[in-house]
């Protein structure tokens, strides 16, 4: 797995530069809560017909920052963007809440507000 750190501002440019739909398969977006003030967002890719070749672009954000959408570059990203919005409470441009959670559900269950273990 090759991890490449990027800044939020250069996300769209880097993904545009890297992504060739015939070469790379976009797997998903992932979120990882690092601490109460930061979340790591990952964009995970695998190379078609290559053995275990994974590339992960990632950046660390604060929960209040707005993450640019890559939906126009990779249309299938729309669904995992909506998932991250729901579960982490992250703001992603143009992505609505409500994929999994109703208004009266526990909000952002995987976000930085809920890090206690074993309860």
């Amino acid at each position: 797995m090759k991890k490449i750190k990027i800044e939020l501002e250069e996300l769209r440019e880097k993904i545009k530069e890297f992504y060739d739909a015939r070469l790379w398969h976009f797997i998903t977006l992932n979120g990882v809560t690092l601490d109460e003030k930061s979340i790591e967002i990952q964009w995970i890719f695998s190379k078609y017909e290559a053995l275990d070749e994974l590339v992960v672009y990632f950046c660390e954000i604060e929960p209040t920052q707005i993450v640019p959408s890559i939906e126009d570059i990779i249309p299938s990203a729309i669904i995992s963007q909506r998932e991250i919005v729901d579960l982490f409470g992250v703001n992603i441009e143009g992505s609505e809440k409500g994929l999994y959670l109703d208004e009266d559900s526990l909000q952002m269950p995987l976000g930085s507000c809920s890090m206690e273990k074993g309860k």
Partner: protein
Amino acid sequence: MAGKKTINIPLGSQHIALLEPVRFKFECENEKIIGVDSDVGFVHRGVEKACTTKFKFDSVGYVVARVCGLCAITHSLSYTVAVEKMLDVEVSLKAKYLRILLLELDRVHSHMLCLAHTCENAGFEAMFMQIMGDRELVMEIQELITGNRIQFDFISIGGVNRDISQEHTKIILQKLKLVREKVLSYKSEFENNWSLSLKFKGVGVLSLDDAYRFNAIGPLARASGLKIDVRNEIEYLPYKEIGFEMQEELGGDVNARNLLRLKEIFNSLDMCENILEGLPSGEIITKYKGKPEGEQIVRFEAPRGELMYYVKGSKKPYLDRVRIKTPTFACIPAFSEVFLGSEYADAPAILASFDPCLSCTAK
């Protein structure tokens, strides 16, 4: 001239064509679908959250096996392999073979369920019942190996929980032979019967370009000619040595997806027989020490396509993150694309041909 009127028709959340709750809202112009909206979260259970807060890492493999009844083995295997990589556990070749055996049996009965469901949607209920009856043979094999028909806790960190005896091997080989005969008997129905072949040709087409564009996976992608199969892209399990061959169809329609699944059943049966006939000797489980540290991404090919687990730990009993990316979830944008331009009357059959798993999707 006045603009064309459109009407919105919902399909689901409960619908006779659906095995699980999902809702599609179709915007239709006459009978043609021109807009699609989906709601997939009806059975969200918070599994990812539970995996990092309620259960210690050595129990999580059994929790994730409950994400889905149909591909329980792929879920528990993906998680377990991620943890094994973090703990540096070497699993015996015999355990790897037994893991593949269960993965492929899972694929066989899951594909049979999908084919049966397609028959039901085509109004061919006798065929539906025949396939579901034949599928029981595979469920019996799974029970013989693991003790359970579904949701078996067969995979453990370090290997598998149960060995397979000579006597069981003999019985399983006999049953597999019978499954092959049964599947062969209805192969011609899917190739030639009007209700199952001609009716579905050119229906629900996903072109190769769109398969790439929407990152389609699994049988949906392979029926459109996109060569993506995780079994071809991982070194961890010795798929090549037991006879894995990537299957492909080019039509991209409902019929092509059915034929592809039939081909995959035969290849899976070949692999199961090869495993049973050449099962190496040795231990089935390796002891391990420590707690997982670091992060791992592991992928396996579930019956519906690529299943991905991201696991992160920091040497504590509870993990920092368990991320589950399921095949149906990743294919939702491709599903929507296929619906666009289709006739509303074909929507249930198209949906069945996707073989969606909402239990996985909502997790």
